[in-house]
């Protein structure tokens, strides 16, 4: 793509999310979402083939539906409160419709079906933007309306997302689908604590984005989109296999890596509010996620597929530049001792 045009489109995506995050007028928020959606379609379709077209179409249809539902919720809110300022949602119907709309945008169950298929159809870099940047805008709206969300719907969607994210990823070998299901599960964790302490939602979002960025960067570095091609990385850069191991274990939420911090804080917050069965269920279902991460580590770093060197070399035409990988690796694995610093967020 022409670099100037690509820059403009990327800036529009950024601007759209920024408008959503910084507006106080509901209409501007909706406009921000639409800008974001329209501008990201060309990014999703960087390579022009039927699979990308299908993925972009699915993304556009679901997100447009969600925007329309959001608009309906905004109008109902306007009818009942008479003003456009985003404070809290004044009508339970509007709250439910808005929660469903934002869940559709995030990919929470039962609106999660588009996430694996869209992520699979697009390139790794576009998938990276889809799974990290696009989650910021809906999550910021959820954060702002969090006092008025119906708790039953929120917790049901959260628990079901963790379940679906865990079980759905078990049968996958395509890396992008694995990351998609992992995203669904993490979104479930984030929304579970939204009603109790939204700061922890933001913490989880931050750490999730760091870990997903790291994973995608490592995949892009080895140009691998399937488990089989990822298992050849020991041949080219053996250090990458160790980094994949550490990051995957961190995503699975194993102490002492930093992926444990959001889970621990969320469990603590939920337990302090006297819900015990819910965090137990969530924690045990996160083990399903850990299982397919472990399977990836088994084929990548903990075993070495027997092969001679010259049989499995992959064509690599240019050295890919991976931005900021060392700081990302450090932050996605070693942040746990900094947990007492969370008190500054109050």
């Amino acid at each position, binding site marked *: 793509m022409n670099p100037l045009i690509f820059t403009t489109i990327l800036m529009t995506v950024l601007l759209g999310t920024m408008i959503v995050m910084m507006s106080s007028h509901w209409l501007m928020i909706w406009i921000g979402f639409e800008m974001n959606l329209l501008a990201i379609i060309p990014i999703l379709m960087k390579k022009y083939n039927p699979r990308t077209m299908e993925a972009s179409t699915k993304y556009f249809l679901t997100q447009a539906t969600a925007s329309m539902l959001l608009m309906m919720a905004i109008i109902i809110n306007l009818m009942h409160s008479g003003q456009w300022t985003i404070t809290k949602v004044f009508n339970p119907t509007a709250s439910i419709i808005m929660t469903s709309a934002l869940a559709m945008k995030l990919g929470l169950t039962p609106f999660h079906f588009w996430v694996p298929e869209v992520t699979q159809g697009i390139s790794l870099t576009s998938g990276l933007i889809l799974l990290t940047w696009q989650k910021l805008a809906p999550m910021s709206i959820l954060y702002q309306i969090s006092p008025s969300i119906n708790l039953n719907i929120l917790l049901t969607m959260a628990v079901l997302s963790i379940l679906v994210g865990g079980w759905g990823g078990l049968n996958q070998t395509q890396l992008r689908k694995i990351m998609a299901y992992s995203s669904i599960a993490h979104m479930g964790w984030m929304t579970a604590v939204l009603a109790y302490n939204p700061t922890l939602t933001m913490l989880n979002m931050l750490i999730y984005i760091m870990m997903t960025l790291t994973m995608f960067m490592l995949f892009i570095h080895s140009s691998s989109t399937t488990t089989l091609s990822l298992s050849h990385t020991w041949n080219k850069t053996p250090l990458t296999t160790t980094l994949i191991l550490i990051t995957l274990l961190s995503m699975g939420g194993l102490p002492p890596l930093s992926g444990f911090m959001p889970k621990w804080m969320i469990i603590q917050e939920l337990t302090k509010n006297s819900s015990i069965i819910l965090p137990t269920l969530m924690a045990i279902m996160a083990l399903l996620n*850990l299982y397919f991460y*472990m399977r990836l580590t088994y084929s990548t770093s903990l075993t070495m597929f027997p092969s001679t060197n010259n049989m499995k070399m992959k064509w690599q035409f240019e050295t890919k530049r991976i931005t900021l990988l060392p700081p990302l690796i450090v932050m996605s694995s070693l942040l746990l001792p900094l947990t007492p610093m969370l008190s500054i967020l109050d």
Partner: protein
Amino acid sequence: MLKIIIPTIMLMPLTWLSKKNMIWINTTTYSLLISLISLSLLNQPSNNSLNFSLMFFSDPLSAPLLVLTTWLLPLMLMASQHHLSKEPLIRKKLYITMLTMLQTFLIMTFTATELISFYILFEATLVPTLIIITRWGNQTERLNAGLYFLFYTLMGSLPLLIALISIQNLTGSLNFLLIQYWNQALPDSWSNIFLWLACMMAFMVKMPLYGLHLWLPKAHVEAPIAGSMVLAAILLKLGGYGMLRITTMLNPQTSFMAYPFLMLSLWGMIMTSSICLRQTDLKSLIAYSSVSHMALVIVAVLIQTPWSYMGATALMIAHGLTSSMLFCLANSNYERTHSRTMILARGLQTLLPLMAAWWLLASLTNLALPPSINLIGELFVVMSSFSWSNITIILMGANITITALYSLYMLITTQRGKYTHHINSIKPSFTRENALMALHMTPLLLLSLNPKIILGFTY
């Protein structure tokens, strides 16, 4: 406590910066020095604990376990030299780094004050162990073994996290030193029953309790020698240590909640001992014998009398040294014949007489011959369980008999009789191996002269 933790962490730069011919020498020497430092902790002047800081403390229960942990690292390094000799330098360094990381986490776990810190470090010990088992094990079954190990432990310990946080809500603090003084009886309700279960299941899986022990034979057999040693000697004792710490907070539910686990342990120790009599795989036999000995520890901890706590602590230390020594002996067989089948390497006394002496001593301590500390541990446990209920003497007696049977079976099969043809060309014992066995045996024998240091906090 930092005087032990910082040197252990610094063992990692030591391995990465050492020259090729000095890595084993450097790491073994310095880890031996660190273990000498930790010996000073055994001097516990009062009945109270030695408080080092807000985060670390040591009391007569954790000090022997800590000394055992630090003692074991040089032994693990010595035992691993042979099977790593063909690997490239970076992989040797990675292996030693994994062992050192595991050691650091274990030291911090045994001395943690705050129970959530204990939990995080308890879980943190899983990651290096998993990497050691799945990356450096020898057979394809090691992948399954690693998965079983990780998931059994995690399924048990996630409810523990939630239980600890809810206890923190109730009592305001999880600092172990404070809880000793606050201790109140838990009110009787259904949710407190689940709290009891949630607290104990993690340690039951780790011990392991008989019904949840499936991960142990897999993990022990598939792990390389250092992995087997650390699993048998220390990681199982983490479960015992955790149970000993947490049962102080869980009265009075323990009096009735303990019954199913007592039944499982009493039955399980006989079952696993009997399985040992039918094993063909040497490492598997030693693994099942670990389950059997740990079942005794579970019985002791759940009965909650002063004598049983003494027996549990002594048995943990004694079993750690004995089991680790048996794994080293089995490994010396494996390195020569590359097979773990017992009948393939018979009659070794003719070929390796000094090793036969170590086999004899190890088997004798395994069957708890007086005056070793194994006997002290088992005797105290048997006596206290007899006072808890007279009928258990039948099961305990049967267990002691069957333990003697399989220990002698293992000894006679591997050492006595005519040797098989194909092993008459094995290499004689290395000095390293003899040193390893001596370093295992010497603490065992010396401790029988002064067992009060390992008798725990009820002495």
